[in-house]
């Protein structure tokens, strides 16, 4: 992964000093609550339901074992022994004390980490494909581009106080695994007809209370110009985005108001002035940044016979390999997903001991590196096939080998009402109740690929709009209810799900999912996935089934009470 140079280190060190002083002035009463709020937010520090929450940046999801051990130490020392992987690949701690935060940031800086711009109305952590650099379908490794964008956006003086938060994602593969269509800027690395490298630029995607799929603003921006082009987009947004209403302040609202052609025209007009300016990238700079990713140099290995023999004889191992192991671009290697979705645990949570244990696995099997995913799991990018069995055994021993990646129980969930001050309803207990209902692995495998995404409020941190099944917590007269959407999808065919009807009480949710699954099983053709069946037969059939079975349940309950 990327190794800091002296300048990267200096900027992070100076940030620690700056924030320590800001915190001191706040505690001394020199900074008001309102003045301190954006400063602490731009350091990832929220005031939450129980305590401050600190969100630590994991640039495009890359972590090394040393960093994981520091996170373990932080979890143990300053938190209640665990941390949480977010849907933007970052890591959150839910229980630090404000007074301790400067010290935590200092510890992070020592392992090339920080919490810069993980919240606030600024350019946030750039996200990308967790399989970047190793995916078999990769066109160009997005990580150096992500790092260049990270550096450009870090303390960008003109864009530190935007109308609202701003998220950028980069995809470099044939299949988009970075959900670029629901980002403020989605960058797709492409080649033009002449074979030159550049970016297809999507703008104005986003979930939240007004979910919108990003639209193409430029079909091809040459790579040399990408920072100039982004600057043009950000300047148009900074000057013209709405600041009178936080709910209408995202760039997607500006793009909708102007229309894509007019927005694109304004960006082009701005870009004309910036093109070929000092921020224009050079081949030497790209190569330099790429060189600072000290990836292992892998040469193809013979396919491992022992691995294949194990697959044939050990059913549990084979099940794990089928769900949690992915092809690698180099023969003899594989990528492994450690599931953070065992039953009964908050999706994406890791204990301090697990952070340490994952560090150990990374050192032993994966060249000391891991990736966090927006699905809230952990990826070991490069593992020798010959090591997979041993890795599986070790991962199982620490509870991270649930063979459910991409299945119904691999639920994406925000922290919800148990932690988050914004939430209307709890998320984690719903995820756990669903996991509990579907605890039969054979049945899960039979159901096949299914993504359930849960958000505790319309801010949509759990990406519910793009879940095959989306669950949204809503408040009805002070009570927690859940609205269900189906037919959403992430990736190249990103689609927003459709609401099936009136919302449900928390206790009904496992039954609702059962009704959806039963309708799918009754209607599916061959090996169709749930989402394909929804596409083919439409939402109506699912809706009818869910509400008919619900009515029957309510009636049965009444009879029982007579």
């Amino acid at each position: 992964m990327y190794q800091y140079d002296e300048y990267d280190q200096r900027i992070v060190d100076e940030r620690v000093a700056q924030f320590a002083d800001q915190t001191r002035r706040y505690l001394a009463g020199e900074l008001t609550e309102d003045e301190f709020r954006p400063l602490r937010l731009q350091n990832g520090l929220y005031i939450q339901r129980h305590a401050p929450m600190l969100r630590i940046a994991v640039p495009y999801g890359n972590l090394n074992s040393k960093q994981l051990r520091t996170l373990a130490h932080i979890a143990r020392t300053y938190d209640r022994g665990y941390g949480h992987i977010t849907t933007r690949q970052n890591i959150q701690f839910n229980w630090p004390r404000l007074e301790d935060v400067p010290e935590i940031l200092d510890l992070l800086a020592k392992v090339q980490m920080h919490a810069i711009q993980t919240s606030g109305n600024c350019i946030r952590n750039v996200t990308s494909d967790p399989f970047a650099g190793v995916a078999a379908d990769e066109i160009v490794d997005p990580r150096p581009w992500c790092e260049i964008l990270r550096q450009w956006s870090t303390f960008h003086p003109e864009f530190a106080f935007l109308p609202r938060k701003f998220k950028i994602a980069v995809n470099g593969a044939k299949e988009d695994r970075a959900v670029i269509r629901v980002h403020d800027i989605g960058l797709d690395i492409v080649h033009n007809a002449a074979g030159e490298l550049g970016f297809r630029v999507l703008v104005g995607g986003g979930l939240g209370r007004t979910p919108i799929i990003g639209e193409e603003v430029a079909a091809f921006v040459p790579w040399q110009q990408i920072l100039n082009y982004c600057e043009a987009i950000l300047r148009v947004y900074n000057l013209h985005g709405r600041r009178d209403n936080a709910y209408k302040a995202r760039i997607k609202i500006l793009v909708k108001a102007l229309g894509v052609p007019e927005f694109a025209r304004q960006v082009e007009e701005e870009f004309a002035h910036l093109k070929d300016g000092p921020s224009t990238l050079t081949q030497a700079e790209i190569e330099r940044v790429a060189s600072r990713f000290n990836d292992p140099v892998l040469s193809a290995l013979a396919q491992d016979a022992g691995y294949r023999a194990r697959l044939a004889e050990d059913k549990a191992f084979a099940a794990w390999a089928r769900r949690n192991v992915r092809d690698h671009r180099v023969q003899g290697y594989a990528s492994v997903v450690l599931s953070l979705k065992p039953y009964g645990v908050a999706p994406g949570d890791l204990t301090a001991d697990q952070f340490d244990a994952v560090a150990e696995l990374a050192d032993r099997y994966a060249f000391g590196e891991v990736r966090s995913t927006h699905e809230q799991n952990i990826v070991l990018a490069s593992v020798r096939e010959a090591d997979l069995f041993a890795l599986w055994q070790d991962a199982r021993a620490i509870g991270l080998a649930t063979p459910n990646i991409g299945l119904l129980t691999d639920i994406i969930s925000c922290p919800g009402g148990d932690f988050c001050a914004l939430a209307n309803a709890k998320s984690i207990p719903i995820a756990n109740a669903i996991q509990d209902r579907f605890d039969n692995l054979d049945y899960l495998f039979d159901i096949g690929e299914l993504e359930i995404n849960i958000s505790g409020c319309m801010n949509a941190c759990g990406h519910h709009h793009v879940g095959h099944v989306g669950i949204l917590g809503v408040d009805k007269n002070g009570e927690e209810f859940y609205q269900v959407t189906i037919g959403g999808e992430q990736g190249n065919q990103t689609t927003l799900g459709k609401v099936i009807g009136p919302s449900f009480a928390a206790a009904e949710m496992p039954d609702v999912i059962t009704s959806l699954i039963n309708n799918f099983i009754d209607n599916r053709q061959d090996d169709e996935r749930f989402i394909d069946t929804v596409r083919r037969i439409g939402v109506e059939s699912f809706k009818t089934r869910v509400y008919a079975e619900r009515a029957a349940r309510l009636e049965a309950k009444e009879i029982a009470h007579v």
Partner: protein
Amino acid sequence: MSDIIKNGRVHVDEWTVLRLAEGDEAATIVLPAGRVIVPLAVWQARREELLPKAEAGVLGVWLAGNEDPTELAGDLSALPLIAVDFPKFADGRGYSIATLLRTRLGYGGELRAIGNVLRDQFFFLLRCGFSVLQPQEDKYTPAQLEAALASLIDFTEPYQGAVDRPEPLFRRQPRRPLHKEAA
């Protein structure tokens, strides 16, 4: 008189910022004596009358966040001072306005940040081309303002180019590649 920050030091200000109150008319409002910074609307309503004052170095113009700096494109050489108002410190439009004045329009005179100007934004303001920072009167004690000068240099080598240092870090400093070893 409020204190201002200029060239890394605290100075006593000699200018008065004129703001239109409810009912004030740009065309008729009486200008205070001495050096004055008038709203764009006043400048536009009375340009002919005010131009000699600007040229004499005693009148400047301030822009609100929703005002287009190109409105002043023809007056830049006459104006000794342009100010940009920050109605709230978290309203970042002024950073883009300043950047456009400096880079696009080539304005070389005094560029002043006024309004809700706080020390924790000093670094960003300087980078976007402001040459004078004017915190609200009485916001800081003299000692606090002296201490706040430290915030002007929060970061010594920022990554990206901006008005103060147009070249990004990779063009300003030699940054080294990392040499790989085979695994």
